């Protein structure tokens, strides 16, 4: 089956979970589909606005704001944007990354947050795709440095182990997230041009510095 044909179904949220995952992996390497998806999302958004339906109860607004207030201390503030165009790519800090990391470690992340972040990286038509050495994975990086690793060929992590992602900043490995099996993993750390992303196999829950051999390496240069 041609994965290009799934763009309309994806924009309408009409894919089975397996198809959705496969399509998201496909998006990472298909500029044509990312462009087409932008147009179709415009249409599905219009369908959403035209849905009709009743008004929400006033209590919903209060509940959302109250919950947001209670989560505030976990939110990492954004660094100020640098407005020089040349530096713009490096400017926006992926607060999502730090926030997602904090929330993961607190066990508060939901599937939805995960799906959101995947969508935002893979759905960005300006994202660049870098193939890892050996071709087992693609590293997708948006102009603001948000990144996802699309892992195709890899055995699931053995019991008691996790794959850990590292971003090398000035030669220092920084923790950037964990995953257990092939698929799409959103990095909890921004990737700047020229930086290298490495995956190692580590103890369950990850470690402070890599101990395993690199399983694969991708450069964002």
């Amino acid at each position: 089956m041609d994965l290009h044909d799934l763009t309309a179904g994806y924009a309408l949220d009409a894919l089975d979970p397996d198809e959705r995952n496969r399509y998201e992996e496909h998006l990472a390497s298909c500029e044509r589909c990312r462009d087409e998806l932008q147009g179709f999302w415009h249409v599905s958004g219009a369908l959403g606005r035209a849905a009709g339906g009743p008004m929400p109860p006033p209590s919903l607004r209060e509940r959302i704001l109250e919950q947001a207030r209670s989560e505030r201390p976990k939110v990492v503030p954004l660094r100020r944007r640098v407005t020089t165009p040349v530096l713009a790519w490096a400017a926006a800090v992926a607060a999502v990354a730090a926030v997602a990391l904090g929330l993961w470690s607190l066990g508060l992340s939901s599937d939805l947050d995960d799906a959101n972040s995947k969508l935002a990286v893979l759905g960005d038509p300006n994202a660049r795709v870098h193939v890892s050495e050996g071709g087992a994975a693609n590293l997708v990086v948006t102009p603001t440095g948000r990144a996802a690793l699309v892992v195709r060929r890899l055995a699931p992590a053995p019991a008691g182990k996790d794959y850990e992602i590292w971003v090398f900043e000035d030669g220092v490995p920084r923790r950037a997230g964990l995953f257990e099996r092939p698929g799409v993993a959103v990095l909890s750390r921004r990737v700047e041009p020229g930086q290298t992303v490495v995956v190692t196999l580590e103890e369950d829950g990850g470690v402070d510095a890599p101990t395993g051999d690199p399983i694969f390496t991708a450069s964002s240069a």
Partner: protein
Amino acid sequence: MRSRDLAHLSDEALVALVARSDESALAELYDRVGGTAYGLAYRVLRDEALAEDAVQEAFLGLWRSAGSFIPERAKASTWILTLVHRRAVDLVRREQRRRAEPLEGTPEPAVGSAEEAAWLRLDRERVRAALAQLPDQQREAIELAYYGGYTQSELADRLGQPIGTIKSRMFAGLTRLRELLEDIERTAWTSTT
């Protein structure tokens, strides 16, 4: 910042403030998009509590992700509705409560000002007019998928068609809708300038 000051900001500017944990910006975004979002979630789910859950999770997802989840080129309101819709169809599939019939006699969602309400109504009429121009089979596939929460393979079973046919109808229908909506927007633009 008081909410009065926020009224002149674009949705995208509000998202940037939400990214800095500005609670009043989140409240203003909810006031603009929350009603529509709930209407959409309710249309898919046909259950008040589940619709509230879908809207709450989408807005809190936005809050937690500090706006960075918004793709650079997407309209903020479109993106919020995308999140709400994704959550609503996931819930409706889990709860096995799909309903394909259109809603009858429900009030339109309320939004902030009379002006916004008029815009929303106009927008909705444009989309409904565009939908009405689609061939019946394309409109049926799109409505059952988007509002009914059916997957492509479920639609193939329900309509007794090969899945390739369902995919073609969705693709052709969305492509046509995109053209129709672009035409409408272009016409609306030139007639006001």
